[in-house]
């Protein structure tokens, strides 16, 4: 045994509020895995001189994923349930040089926030949205989510889910903003690569990250062990190129299609607005 001179630190600690670690997420929770890869992407772009982390405004909603804003050392906002996307709209309108990143959960973004998700994508609004999908409402104890698979138990559907889930990525894909991707915490290096690419693009960028909630969703489907649920997710995730929305599947029992589905460089909302309305100074400082 040896005594350390400095407190132990992880390579990403410079981007975190380490006085708040260990974080509140459960053992095996995929949110920490997704957040780690987001921070690697920021660190690498920062070191490559391509991104100024002081310009990031990291906005989250309510839920387990929403707690992420408490652990990162950026300009942050822990907004209201479903409202991180409009919050980010306001930030960008006020200061176009800022880089809004929305990091929130499936219930927050696709249920109560669904209207905002749809319109921000339609506008090709300048923001990166990362939706961590664990198919449940974890923080409040395991109620039904719009992404919960059919017939699965939830605390508000104790006889099984009578609904079919929404494939939020397919919906966003059909609206056709600049960047649409679905990743999984089981393939972490791909999350990092995708985030690195998306952070440097303009317009609306969407990355769904499939995640594990062993404590609640896993318990509901009899797979409470983190590695068992992780392996189960890994089996159903299939990386493919897609030619149309029909190729994108979201079926917990057969295939959840992952990959980069859309990547283009159409003018963003802010580009359009600022140039059409003669706001030249703001256009000059507009950053992706």
């Amino acid at each position, binding site marked *: 045994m040896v005594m350390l001179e400095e407190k132990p630190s992880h390579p990403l600690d410079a981007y975190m509020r380490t006085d*708040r670690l260990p974080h509140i997420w459960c053992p095996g929770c995929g949110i920490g895995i997704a957040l780690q890869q987001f921070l690697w992407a920021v660190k690498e772009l920062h070191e490559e001189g391509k991104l100024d982390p*002081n*310009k990031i*405004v990291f*906005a989250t909603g*309510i839920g387990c994923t929403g707690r992420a*804003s*408490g652990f990162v*050392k*950026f*300009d*942050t*906002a*822990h*907004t*209201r349930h479903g*409202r991180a*996307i*409009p*919050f*980010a*709209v*306001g*930030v*960008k*309108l*006020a*200061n176009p*040089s*800022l880089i809004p990143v929305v990091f929130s959960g499936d219930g927050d973004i696709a249920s109560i926030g669904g*209207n*905002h998700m*749809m*319109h921000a994508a339609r506008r090709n609004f300048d923001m990166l949205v990362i939706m961590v999908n664990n198919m449940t409402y974890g923080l409040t104890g395991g109620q039904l989510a719009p992404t919960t698979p059919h017939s699965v138990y939830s605390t508000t559907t104790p006889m099984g889910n009578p609904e079919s889930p929404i494939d939020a990525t397919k919906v966003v894909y059909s609206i056709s903003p600049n960047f649409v991707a679905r990743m999984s915490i089981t393939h972490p290096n791909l999350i990092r690569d995708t985030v690195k690419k998306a952070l440097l693009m303009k317009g609306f960028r969407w990355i769904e990250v499939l995640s594990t909630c062993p404590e609640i969703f896993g318990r509901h489907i009899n797979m409470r062990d983190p590695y068992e649920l992780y392996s189960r997710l890994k089996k159903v995730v299939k990386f493919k190129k897609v030619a149309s929305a029909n190729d994108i599947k979201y079926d917990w029992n057969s295939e959840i299609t992952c990959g980069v589905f859309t990547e283009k460089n159409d003018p963003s909302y802010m580009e359009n*607005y*600022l140039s059409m*309305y*003669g*706001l030249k*100074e*703001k256009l000059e400082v507009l950053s992706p």
Partner: protein
Amino acid sequence: MKAEFLNSNQAVAEGAMAAGLGVYVGYPITPSSDMFEYLSEELPKRGGSVFQAEDEIASINALVGASLAGAKSMTATSGPGFSLMMEGIGFAAMVEAPLMIVDVMRAGPSTGIATQIGQGDIYQAKWGSHGVYNLVAYAPASAQEAYDYAIKSFNAAYSVRTPVVLMTDAVLAHTRERVVLRDPGELEIVGRNAQKVAPDQYRPYRPDPEDLVPPMAFYGEGYHPIAESLSHDERGYYKTDDEIYRALVSRLVRKVEVNKSKLVASKSYYAEDADVLFVAIGSMARNLLALVRELRGRGIKAGMFRPISLWPFDDESFVAAAARASKIVTVELNQGQLYQILKGILWDNRNKVSNPTIYNLDMPLPTLPTPDEILGEIESRGWKLW
């Protein structure tokens, strides 16, 4: 300065722009839509941005983001949209985001009558969101006042870091009047109290010990501010402890109260020797003033007190105006909301007034009664006021 012929929708827009408006995010709703349309053309010419959101909920939440990112931000709405914004107003109060919401009141509840006047949102302005918080609300009664108080609303917002509600009505909105627009040098504009410490010393919710308002760092300045909707300590970290919660919400309430003298506003008419003191706001006060003058002409000692700040209410001025009155009559287009406010103030100040009787002339109409109709309503209730 120059004089223009404007309705109060335009006057509010001009006042806001004079105060340095940077971002307008709104949603169409009668009778405020033409303010939105006016700004969508004018504001970009002055370097600001106007955005039509998908609904009022998106609007209010976008304003909080815009405010924290450094822009003076506002929206304009009416009753139904104002109701949708309630959660967002609480969010703004909790994260101490200065912003302005214009409620052009119309007849409610629910869809009501979109194109006609209401005055039923008085309590909602302050108490509409859940939990313990405070804010400032003004009710101008002319296009000139709408211009002046749009500027004062932003000043108030940045002085105490709360959302501020500017309450006009459907009649003021579209009534054109002479408005004197002032030059930049003639205006008192209040901005944020900027953060003076180094980033590593920065505590986003540490208040100034005197005015209880935390100095404000915007996004992008290197301070890494946290906007936290959960109960939080001075660092913005989520805390459930009794003392921390209590200190936070008590300060949210008290920061408006300790700055009250800078925020309150009202006007009194013929109050020095008034035996019957009428009270009304907005367009109603204008018709009521005509009645008061008519009564004076008949030798009746009538007076009027017109609150301009609804929250905080100018209770000191009201008590002074009511000191000699034996009758107080609130006249409003609702079920009696000013009435409820004044009952409390009179009780608290019962040793400073002359034991008056307070009458609730509630007239829940969607149109402004004429001075004769107000008189007729008083007579129909059999009140012997003089």
